[in-house]
């Protein structure tokens, strides 16, 4: 009991670390991916657009604005150069269109008017430009046969209102699963930092100076102390995992009650086990508190950056993805991505996920074996 009490004292003294990393996890999972309502109908992507119409009197310019407003998210910004430039750089808007005065009249007269645009160059901006081109092309064609501006605008709007019926093959809650995968991928970071930092700090506290000497002269056998510490550390890791799973239910909600949600939980449990074994291994290696801080950050940030916890795996360069294979985090995050795409729970679909989990367990096994080897070596040396 004394050991448990000491364990809890060390934990509570460092609890702020856990609170800080949990806050980061919650913050990012709430603000980075916003889950929409479950929608089993197709929903078109809407680029963020800023529009200035300096050609207020023209029916055509007005119609162009109406069309773009219907298919884009129109963003309100102060009409100042710096505000617009900043919004573009920080991707608040994907595309900025300025319709100059006299645009409609020039267009109808067959001159070649100019539209001023600014673009982030990403796919949303490309799509916004496609829509702009589509309107202009259609209007150009109708200009050949339509006599008046009103007639032209009416024909363009009628033709552009035509929609292709679109069926959605998936019955998954795509945006909910996206958010869940983001949360569980990001979990790699707080779980690694929390487990390694806490477990190593506790182990160091029991090994350092007076505490170690007091334990040595106490009636409790060292094996028993180690057993209790192992149990307490495992319990701590389990509770930490449980808290994070609990938070995922609060933050993500409905998708966590689905079949995919269960897989996310199972996968994270296997990973939490692996991280615990890694933390116990490091506790055997690290004997310096200052080094521990650096090591925790390097392992936590390194594995998170390289294995897709912060940046989606598909966006990482090929070589980085190849290097990432040597970290258990990669297999854990890759499994999350497979769970995200899991349509049905058939054997064929779950085998790849189970394979990833098996590899994570294999890493855990290696960590346990190395830990045992190291402690045996240390005992022999002490003897």
């Amino acid at each position, binding site marked *: 009991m004394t050991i448990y009490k000491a364990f809890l004292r060390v934990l509570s003294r460092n609890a702020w670390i856990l609170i800080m990393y949990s806050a980061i996890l919650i913050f990012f999972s709430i603000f980075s991916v916003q889950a929409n309502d479950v929608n089993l109908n197709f929903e078109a992507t809407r680029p963020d657009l800023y529009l200035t119409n300096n050609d207020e009197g023209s029916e055509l310019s007005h119609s162009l604005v109406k069309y773009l407003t219907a298919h884009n998210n129109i963003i309100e910004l102060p009409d100042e150069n710096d505000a617009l430039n900043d919004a573009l750089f920080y991707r608040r808007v994907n595309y900025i269109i300025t319709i100059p005065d006299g645009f409609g009249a020039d267009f109808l007269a067959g001159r070649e008017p100019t539209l001023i645009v600014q673009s982030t160059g990403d796919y949303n901006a490309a799509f916004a430009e496609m829509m702009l081109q589509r309107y202009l092309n259609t209007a150009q064609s109708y200009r050949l*046969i339509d006599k008046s501006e009103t007639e032209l605008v009416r024909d363009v709007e009628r033709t552009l209102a035509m929609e292709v019926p679109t069926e959605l093959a998936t019955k998954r809650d795509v945006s909910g699963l996206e958010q869940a995968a983001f949360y569980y991928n990001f979990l790699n970071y707080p779980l690694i930092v929390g487990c390694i930092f806490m477990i190593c700090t506790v182990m160091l506290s029991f090994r350092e100076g007076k505490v170690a000497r007091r334990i040595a002269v106490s009636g409790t056998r060292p094996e028993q102390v180690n057993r209790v510490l192992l149990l307490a550390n495992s319990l701590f890791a389990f509770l930490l995992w449980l808290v994070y799973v609990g938070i995922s239910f609060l933050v993500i909600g409905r998708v966590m009650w689905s079949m995919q949600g269960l897989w996310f939980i199972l996968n994270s449990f296997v990973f939490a086990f692996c991280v615990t074994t890694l933390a116990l291994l490091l506790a055997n290696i690290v004997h310096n508190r200052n080094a521990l801080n650096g090591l925790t950050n390097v392992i936590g940030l390194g594995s998170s950056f390289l294995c897709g916890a912060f940046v989606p795996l598909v966006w990482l360069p090929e070589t980085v993805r190849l290097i990432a294979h040597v970290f258990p985090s990669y297999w854990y995050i890759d499994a999350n991505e497979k769970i995200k795409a899991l349509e049905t729970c058939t054997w064929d679909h779950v085998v790849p996920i189970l394979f990833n989990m098996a590899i994570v367990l294999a890493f855990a096994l290696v960590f346990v074996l190395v830990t045992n080897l190291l402690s045996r070596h240390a005992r022999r040396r002490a003897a």
Partner: protein
Amino acid sequence: MFWHNFKYTLKIILRDYALVFWTLAFPLIMATLFNLAFSNIENGERLKVIDVAVIDDGEWQANKPFQEAFRELSREDSPDRLFDTRYVSREEANQLLADEDIAGFLQLKSGHPELTVAESGINATILKSAIEEIATQSQVIREIAQKDPTKLAQLGTLPTVEIEDQSSEHLSYTMIEYYTLIAMTCLYGGMIGMAAINQLLANMSTSGRRIAVSPSPKWKLIISGLLASYLVQLVGLALLFVYTITILHVDYGPHFGLVATLSLLGSLAGLAIGVAVASLVRSNANAKVGIIIAVTMFGCFLAGMMGITMKYIVDTNLPILNRLNPANLITDGLYALYYYPTFDRFWGDVSVLTGITIVLIGFSIWSLRKEQYDNL
């Protein structure tokens, strides 16, 4: 006395391995990770050729406009290529969709296009939009043919609307990550300045007590200690620049002189924060380090280190917070040099940062000057 203290402060700093790690090595590790993780992220957001399928049945074979349009949109040598199209049966298309090999497939039914997509998203949206465009153009051609067939020949020679793209070439937002890293390096330097001051303070160390009772002029010791700290800070900063420029090939733009100037000033601001925390906060060394790390990391967070959106949110909703945040002033100054053709914003950031540095140094001098002990 000046150089003696300078030399020993240098030794003390360089032998504190934790300090060396956080101020010299950690920024390099972070730069490497940023480079590995972000080098492809902006390419990932560009429009790529989309894998699609078409149900190649009798209807498709009979519809020339759609065939031609898809051939054109899938042409490998075209710079405007949108699709990589496979012509398959319905069963094959379903399988390709289930295997996530295609974004969606098109089937013509009674002359009308019908689309099946894997899930909502940009690729499916572009596929739908392109099909609607083809259908729209076919409709327009039909109407022109009905109303005035002589105009059909003019379709290919219509005057175009010029779309003039006035976007800046410098739109790489991952640069902000490197700028926040420079800001972090500058401000982490505060830990070095703090270490130098701590060893001179009588309530922090035994050497401080000995110095307090010695006849050496305090200003000489403080200045030489801070000079040694600043030197180590600049070495760290130089290492970061050399590493990011030569190994990671980060381009700091054409105004490197100004980039370096702002970084030197930023380091001074970091030093000022360190000295202010060391002299104004009455606590142990660990608590003081904690304050510097917390101030730096929270400042970098608001400046966009963990996601550039945060900087934009604070800049637009609570600008005063970022106007007083040294990490943001450094980041924003570098951003202004990178993105804006004029220097107004840059000099604005430099002025505020200089002001903050002077105020902090002023407070520190005031605090250190009145330092007197009856006993320790």
